[in-house]
């Protein structure tokens, strides 16, 4: 096909390339808008026509991390001069940072929610990938009675709608005091990701030639030693890719977090929308929170780019 090229084909190719560029720009526009709003002064966030060129500011991030109140009167020149740069930025926007009796800066709810997201996502990922790797090896290497049914069972647990599982889990957690706790959320996310991790890891395990371990067994390794010393290093890329997928799923999860947590263990996804309360929300602060929250996922997506297909199809389609 490529050998014979008519001029109409070449023109069509050029049109297609321009179309692809246009589509990419349209698809990335909302993400660009989040990123740019995160660095805007508040009065430029909601203008018509939209503000595209502006002097970037760090104030949305300062406001994101601190508790603030409206300034009734502008600060005195001495007060302004004595304030550190991050406090002046807030003064400039007509607000002041709330301090307690000892003059300590009061944090907003965001840092603790971000930490909760990290704790819950990392712990559940380690558990799900750890258990999933063992189980995948078991399914990949040994005869298991009713293997197809077991694997379907494992997959079907992942397909349950979160709200359906959340109703009984909420009642059970309430009975044992796990509501609004890190442990409760970690268990839910581990269960949710475990099935995914088994399916994906099984694909990776199937690709490691059996002969490697068999050679090791002949050399006097036990099966366990062969698993830890031969199979695991071979599966390292697969484990890393699976882990990143599990992390992203847990990091992004909303419904369970909304239902199961309220304050102490609340993660960022239910917290960020709760900031849009009554009145006019400060979109620069929301954009800053969103931007920080999306950043790890954007980086991971880039690192994962060669495994995305596999991960999104539960390991069914390999390149």
């Amino acid at each position, binding site marked *: 096909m490529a050998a014979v090229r008519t001029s109409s084909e070449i023109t069509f190719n050029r049109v297609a390339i321009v179309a692809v560029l246009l589509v990419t720009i349209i*698809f990335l526009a909302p993400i660009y808008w989040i990123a740019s709003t995160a660095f805007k002064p508040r009065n430029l966030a*909601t203008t018509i026509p939209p503000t595209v060129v502006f002097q970037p500011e760090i104030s949305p991030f300062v406001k994101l991390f601190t508790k603030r109140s409206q300034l009734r009167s502008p600060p005195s020149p001495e007060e302004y001069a004595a304030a550190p740069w991050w406090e002046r930025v807030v003064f400039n926007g007509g607000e002041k940072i709330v301090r307690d009796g000892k003059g300590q800066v009061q944090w907003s709810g965001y840092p603790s929610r971000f930490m909760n997201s990290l704790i819950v996502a990392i712990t559940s990922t380690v558990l799900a990938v750890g258990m999933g790797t063992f189980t995948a090896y078991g399914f990949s290497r040994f005869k298991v009675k009713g293997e197809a049914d077991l694997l379907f069972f494992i997959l079907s647990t992942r397909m349950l709608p979160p709200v359906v599982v959340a*109703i009984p889990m909420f009642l059970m957690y309430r009975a044992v005091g796990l509501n609004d706790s890190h442990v409760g959320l970690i268990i839910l996310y581990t269960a949710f990701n475990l099935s995914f991790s088994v399916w994906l890891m099984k694909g990776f395990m199937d690709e490691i030639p059996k002969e490697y371990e068999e050679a090791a067994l002949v050399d006097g390794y036990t099966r366990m030693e062969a698993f830890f010393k031969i199979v695991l290093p071979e599966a390292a890329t697969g484990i890393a890719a699976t882990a990143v997928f599990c992390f992203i799923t847990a990091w992004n999860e909303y419904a369970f977090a909304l239902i199961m947590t309220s304050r102490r263990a609340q993660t960022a996804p239910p917290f960020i929308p709760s900031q849009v309360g009554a009145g006019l929300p400060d979109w620069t602060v929301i954009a800053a929170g969103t931007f920080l929250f999306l950043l790890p996922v954007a980086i991971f997506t880039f690192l994962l780019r060669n495994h995305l297909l596999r991960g*999104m199809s539960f390991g069914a389609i390999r390149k």
Partner: protein
Amino acid sequence: MATTMITTLDRSSRAAARGLSDISIRNLFIIPTILFLIVFNIFPLIYSLGYSFTDFRASTSAAANFVGLQNYRDLLSDPYVWSNFAITAKYVIISVAGQLLVGFGVAMLLNRDIPLKGLLTTLLLLPMMLSMAVVGLFWKLLYDPSFGIINYALGLGTFEWLSDPKMALYAVALTDIWMWSPFVMLLSLAGLSAVPKHLYEAAAIDRAGPFYTFFRITLPLVAPILMIAVIFRTMEAFKTFDLAYILTSQPTAELISIRLYKMAFQEWQTGRSCALAYIVLIMVLAITNIYVKYLNKVKER
């Protein structure tokens, strides 16, 4: 030859004498996972099956009374619930059809030699990796009638996307199409790149037109993988909660999972919501079954 050697070794006492036997390792590796899933996924479902036959309300301390199939009867004869299912069906059709068109279309465009193709593909995939809830929230600003960039870019004045009852569901579907078209694109690209080049060469020799080539070669060969994308997206769209819940509170956009959430955690009709959860569950399992059958079929190729 090596394999036969191993089997003899395994059977003999040598391998078994060293460390655990294969069977105990298999059990050790598999059983904890199965148990974990039973305890945290199946047990809760049995628990809620029990509640679905009662008038239990989690907000009161009153004991649950057994009401038999009353909850199921009420739900299935409730026009309100049926309208939630109808809205969900409409949403699934619009958003999956949109994703199929956009995703497959972009994949067709991308399926050629393009400078920086890898980078463009990765950038296009970004939306589907992001949090639906958090990005969905930001779409509220994009859709804003007075200062949203969408109305500005399209010259729509103060068009109400989310607060117009007729428009809200389409607006949610549009955001979903933005998020998930990349998924269909990704799978389509894999399907397209797997079509053997010699088929196109043969078609070119036979002077087949582009339409004939597309409908007789490309589409039939990509169809199974597109089918996977469609079933998977159907299942996910059916379960949609985050996006619709965050973007709008219009009753015309109240998907079944939102109804379920409200019934369970705002109206506290725990028993009845358990029954509704079971109706939804059976539907999801049916779609999952079709999906897995298809996955296995494609895997075998």
